[in-house]
């Protein structure tokens, strides 16, 4: 015989089960990000998820590295025997702000159908729009599982100051990954770095961490729009061009002219990067930047850099790479000023093409 339902009992049982579920989530911290509809139901993204206006870009930023990579095309592309896999890491200039996926450096290299040592070159865009060497190393260490044949690490001076290393949200929310790099590869990280976001037990429960869960689900849902439109960022009709006139300002972070203090630069992160990739060849590329000819351009190259700091940085990089026998490619001035968009490091499609053409010989040289 059916017993009548007792709503209060149902309510209490439901509440208990939900509480238990929350406690299990908090204690277990499952890595659900690695399960993705990308590369299964819809194609993987050509670049890592990033977006500040999801409704327009069908893309969003989240801190879960598993989820980020699981949504990327690299996670769903088994490496073929005849593939020469090139992984490119770096900042927004690699990711491709204002550029369509096929207009980015990776896209341009793929369009060229290069052949290296009898293998087809396939470049993967693993850039991410924040500037920090530590962030790059973290992504690089994750990308290693995809067996790259060559790594291109695009960087610029603004990624070097120590104060910028852990302040980027992606790094700040992934302390565990950074500590692993410190343990395994001697990445220098302060023991009590205040930038790291530490979650309390409550913040690890399903309710406490609901934002992360929601982001994960939204990322999957936006996969439909990515598949349907091929759009993964908002392209404004117009934008403000990169600044070319400046105040007579020589400042660069906390450094004082005439020389950069190497103690204030995260040179250790570069070394860690090389340790992480191990035997895999890696190019360190000083990425192109806008060289202004506007007001006070004798003092500053652009919005980011006073001349003294940047010139010193190039000298440091040259010396460091020679000392360590790194393949260092300095392409700082190869792109004319009119091929930059809204920032001194964001290139137009033509600028990216020029960059790709310049890098091609280095790629071909470094195949094994």
């Amino acid at each position, binding site marked *: 015989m059916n017993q009548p339902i007792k709503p209060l009992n149902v309510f209490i049982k439901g509440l208990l089960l939900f509480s238990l579920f929350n406690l299990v989530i908090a204690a277990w911290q499952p890595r659900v990000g690695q399960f993705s509809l990308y590369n299964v139901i819809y194609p993987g993204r050509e670049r890592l998820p990033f977006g500040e206006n999801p409704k327009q870009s069908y893309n969003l930023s989240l801190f879960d590295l598993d989820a980020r990579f699981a949504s990327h095309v690299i996670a769903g592309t088994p490496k073929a025997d005849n593939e020469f896999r090139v992984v490119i890491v770096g900042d927004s200039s690699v990711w491709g702000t204002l550029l369509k996926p096929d207009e980015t450096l990776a896209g341009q290299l793929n369009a060229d159908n290069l052949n290296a040592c009898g293998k087809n070159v396939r470049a993967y865009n693993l850039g991410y729009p924040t500037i920090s060497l530590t962030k790059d190393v973290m992504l690089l260490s994750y990308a290693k599982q995809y067996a790259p044949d060559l790594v291109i690490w695009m960087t610029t001076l603004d990624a070097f100051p120590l104060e910028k290393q852990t302040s980027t949200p992606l790094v700040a929310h992934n302390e565990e990954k950074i500590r692993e790099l410190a343990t395994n590869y001697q990445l220098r990280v302060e023991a009590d770095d205040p930038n790291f976001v530490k979650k309390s037990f409550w913040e690890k429960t399903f309710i406490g961490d609901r934002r992360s869960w929601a982001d994960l689900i939204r990322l999957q*849902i936006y996969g439909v*729009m990515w598949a349907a*439109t091929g*759009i993964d960022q908002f392209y404004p009709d117009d934008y403000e061009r990169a600044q070319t006139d400046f105040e007579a300002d020589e400042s660069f972070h906390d450094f004082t002219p005439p020389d950069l203090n190497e103690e204030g630069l995260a040179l250790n992160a570069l070394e860690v990067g090389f340790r992480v990739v191990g035997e895999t060849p890696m190019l360190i590329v000083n990425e192109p930047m806008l060289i202004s000819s506007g007001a006070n351009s004798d003092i500053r190259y652009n919005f980011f850099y006073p001349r003294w700091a940047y010139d010193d940085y190039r000298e440091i990089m040259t010396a460091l790479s020679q000392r360590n026998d790194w393949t260092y490619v300095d392409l700082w001035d190869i792109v004319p000023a009119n091929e930059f968009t809204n920032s001194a490091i964001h290139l137009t499609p033509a600028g990216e093409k020029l960059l790709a053409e310049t890098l091609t010989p280095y790629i071909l040289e470094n195949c094994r």
Partner: protein
Amino acid sequence: MALENILILAAASLLWAATFRNHGRTWFMLIASVVVIFWLQPALPIRGADFFTPLATLVLVVLTWFITAADETRKQRKNIIILLVVAGVVLLLNLARFLPADFQLFTASRPPQLETTLLIFLVTGLTLLALSRLTRFSASFLTVGLVLTIGLFLALKVPALTYWTAYFLRSLSGQNVYASRITDFAWLGFSYVAFRLIHTIRDKQSGRFPSVDVGEFITYVIFFPAFTAGPIDRLERFIKDLRAPFAGLNLEAFYFAGQRLLIGLFKKFVIADALALIALNDTNATQVTSAFWMWVIVYAYTFQIYFDFSGYTDIALGIAQLLGIKLPENFASPYLKPNLTQFWNNWHMTLTQWFRAYFFNPITRWLRSWQKPMSMPMMILLTQVATMVLIGFWHGVTWNFTLWGLWHGLGLFIHNRWNDATKTKAAAWATTPTKQAILHISGILLTFHYMAIGWIFFALSSPAISWQVILKLFGVN
């Protein structure tokens, strides 16, 4: 209504029902409804408009009650008390202008100067006084009320009129008239308020208006659970629940209310809001690159609008049930119906019933009364198309809503003719359960896709983009 609004209203209703039961229940519903229409009204760029639009709702409701109520009901002293209480609540909300901004909880922006509100009360009071002095109520007042309500409705639904209304209101408030936009004048809940008012005026004209005091009437028209998204209840049914003794919330009622509320919240804030991320809109309509994905986003919209709307209905029914009001159902698995006629009998049921009662049936009767009535198919075509186009206009007087109405009017007509022509043959063929199931499922799929294509006109703002989407769906362009 946002999630926090819903949770607060549900909690307040539950608390009242559990604590006070029948004591002051009608007062609670009246005062809560008055406060809620101010609370939910979004901020408007026209100065004071987000306070004056709900106030205008109240004035309109009171005037409509006055012209529809029976003489003896109107003269009852309790009406004056109720009106004073309602005015007092509005004044209290207005007085919040003197509180720090953090305490102005029930209005979207700082309430306007008190003098204007008092002036509106004075004018309304004098109008009521003048009307009450008339020894005999003329039926023409009802016509004036009807025209005024429909006029206001058009001012909100015809984009050009909305623009000029915004222009006029901006000039009245001394603001830049050249910045006028049709979005300046978003009168929350007016579509539903207008239809309830028209219903009562028409019922009065046909002698079916029940005797209700002003408090009951205001509660009916602006009943807070159903204020923003329906359902459109009928006055005589609502009053029965309102007057029925309420012994408090029993476990069964609580279970029903809680279940509807939770189902509604899940439908709206989980399913519909998730589907909204990928549902058809003006932007993505032009971005989608293939027919397959175009179908996906059209399906997403089709389900989003259902879960959104039916979710709100569930929420309204759940909250109302906490207070002992059993609002009518609005949806009954409409996408599982095997033909368009059945779909419309199960989608936004209270709106279609309203149109059937106040437009379709009267106009059909009128056409039949002609000395030389037109042919039956012609009459069906005319009445179905006119009804559906009007339902389209209820959402907005635009080309796309017109096309949406035409699409459904023609669909209903074609279904009617097809059904007449094939009924016998279909019955003769479908002699086994399998064949009957085939017919039934085919009907569901066909109806669903007819609906889905119709939603394209509803979701988008221009016929050109809608046409592009339809072409893309079928692999053209």
